[in-house]
């Protein structure tokens, strides 16, 4: 039998949340910490995705998808800000100061503390970004830390794909927004 869920331990210290009415949040997602957490419109939080605001506030934009076992933690009191259309894949760890619009963070990637990530970046599976690093717009990090600039113009297509995926997820994930507001 699994050990007692940590969720219940932190039930007392549930953070103040601002959740848009259009979000899709699984009841087994975990919002912990003491600083405020706000989540924008149409954003999806999969089961067992964890947001920890113990050290600072967390702000998440519109049309983001945070997958299973994603771990997002504010690095310090300035908090963590994730802009619109950010996709965070399974097992990824995000401790960034900010993540720009349209960035894809793939399976198991790790964004170190206080790093600043630009727009439309892509982090391939298991790649890492060091602490306080600045990643420019349109950077693709792949393989063993190789980087390249993505010059292609299909950013709008990617956004559309995210929107379509969110539509699909509405049928799959049972949302329990009320649970996190009480």
């Amino acid at each position, binding site marked *: 039998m699994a050990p007692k869920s940590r969720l219940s331990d932190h039930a007392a210290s549930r953070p103040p949340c601002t959740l848009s009415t259009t979000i899709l949040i699984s009841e087994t997602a975990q919002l912990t910490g003491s600083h405020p957490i706000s989540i924008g419109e149409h954003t999806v939080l999969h089961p067992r995705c964890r947001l920890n605001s113990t050290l600072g506030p967390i702000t998440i934009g519109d049309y983001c998808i945070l997958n299973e076992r994603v771990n997002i933690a504010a690095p310090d009191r300035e908090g963590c800000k994730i802009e619109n259309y950010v996709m965070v894949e399974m097992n990824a760890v995000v401790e960034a100061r900010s993540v720009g619009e349209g960035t894809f963070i793939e399976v198991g990637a790790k964004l170190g503390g206080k790093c600043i990530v630009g727009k439309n970046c*892509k982090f*391939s599976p298991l790649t890492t970004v060091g602490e306080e690093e600045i990643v420019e717009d349109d950077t*693709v990090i*792949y*393989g063993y830390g*190789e*980087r*390249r*600039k*993505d*010059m*292609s*113009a*299909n950013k709008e*297509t990617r956004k559309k794909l995210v929107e379509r995926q969110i539509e699909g997820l509405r049928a799959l994930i049972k949302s329990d927004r009320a649970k996190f507001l009480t």
Partner: protein
Amino acid sequence: MNAPLFPSILISCPCSDNVGQQRSRRSKTAAADPDLDQWEEEGETFDPRSPRSAFSLFPLENLLFCEDCNQVRCPRCVQDEIACYFCPSCLFEVPSSTVKSEGNRCTRNCFSCPICFAALAVTATGEDQTGPFILLCAHCLWSTSDIGITFEKPTSITAQLTAKLKAASLPPSNSLAPPESSHSRPLSPLSQGSSVYNFRPNSPIPPPAPTDEAEFARLKGYYHQQNTIASSDDFGGAGSLSRLMGMYSTGRRIGSYGTGNMPKLVKQKQEWQEIESYRVMDSEDEVIEKMKKAGFYGATSQSQRIIQSHQPRLLEDVRPLAALLRTKRAKRCRSCRHILVKPEQKVGSIRYRIRLVAGLDHNAVNYFSLQPLATHQFLLTVTNPLYDVINITLATPEKTPGKYPATVYILCPEFEVGASTDVWDEALGPEAKPKAKAAKGRKTGLAGTIWDSGRNWTSVILEIVPPHLPDDVELEEDDFIVKVPILVRSVYESDVDKDDGIGKDIKEKKEHSYWSVLEVGRIGKKVAGKVGFDDSASAGTGVAVNKALPPTPSGEPREREHRDREHRSSSRSHRESAGAAR
């Protein structure tokens, strides 16, 4: 030779001296020398330290077994045969004639990324899956639109790409892509080289040095022409001789040999020349200027550059890489031409029709050091993949060969190993268990008894007393390793022919023996006051099952996984119980 893990088992393939030859035993015994006679009869102890041994010892996974020769076959005494060519990406089989004419790359829609080498996918850029289409790398997001190429339709990308590249007028120094270059061009080093570094053949007349591609096309045309002339030459003899002479003689002499067949060809030397001329290097100023402009992120890395046939320096010049074809290979015994391994012809299948692997179970054990002059006990486990019971006889020299011999003793050198029957037989019901293991002193560690046995495996104890190495002599690394040669001989009875129903009941006695070398461990420093150090059974080492999984229709090694696991866990439990028993 020294495996990093001890103990390890290497098996000797006797082919290093006489591949594919039956040893002429008779002629030797006929010699009147009684010593030689005896030597032949008894066989010489295999010396793992002899320099030649390095060439005949192989780990099990490199070995096959030939049923006809009743002999282990190593990579040197099997012959590869290409069964088919196929594209690893679309799994389409490519006929060998196409491989010869079109080259060894897929001519369908299979490309890999020039940046990260992942597979590219045809992706629509328009609304609702309409064109234009691009080849997109899902990993690093590189796409053909980065080099300004899009496709009108999502099929026959190779043809479209060829046409696009042909149309694109690029500066000659780093251009590529003349007609059908990327896929139809053989990747031989001769045709590949970069235009900048290589000496290349040079027609004496035209000063503008031809690009690689032009040169390649010219040579291809030339040799093709030669080929047609050769095949249309009715008079075989004189005409083709003079033509050959013309081809191989130097430029000046050609004229005198020319026949009516080839007046144009002899005008100048057209065939491939290697050293005869050198090439003036192109000015690199332009390239350097471009590289300056492109900067670090605009330049190709070494691996990105050398994988492309035109070796571009700038990322803007890279091209999608057509997928290289792979082969499936059959393997034959060099001695009797019997097929040892034959993959399923179907490309999508990883099954084998025939696969005769030498089977041996081998547990890797962590490195540990041996104490000099202390008795060490190991468990030697023999597993049997055959459907027949086998009788094993192990023989070792009392002292291992070498300058500092270790003493070896196998407590029970003769024993039986049960057949590889259904795994469930062991699990369900005691009557299914082999009789051999009934009672007879299990796990006593007494001489003459086996340690333990199961459905298709038997363990015996091997005792080793490593030598004391002198301190005052300089020793080589090899002297520290205890290597035990073991002659494994197995006898079993099997059905003569399993295929026809008639001979079902006739049993045939088969015998097989080979030398294997067990590298037990490294001799460490002697620890004062710890004399009877005993790591009894800390190594569960499987020696030897000499023969293959019989060729089953599916060819899959049945339950092998399971057996290994079961076997391993059993040897682990030996280790614990052995500690208690001692």
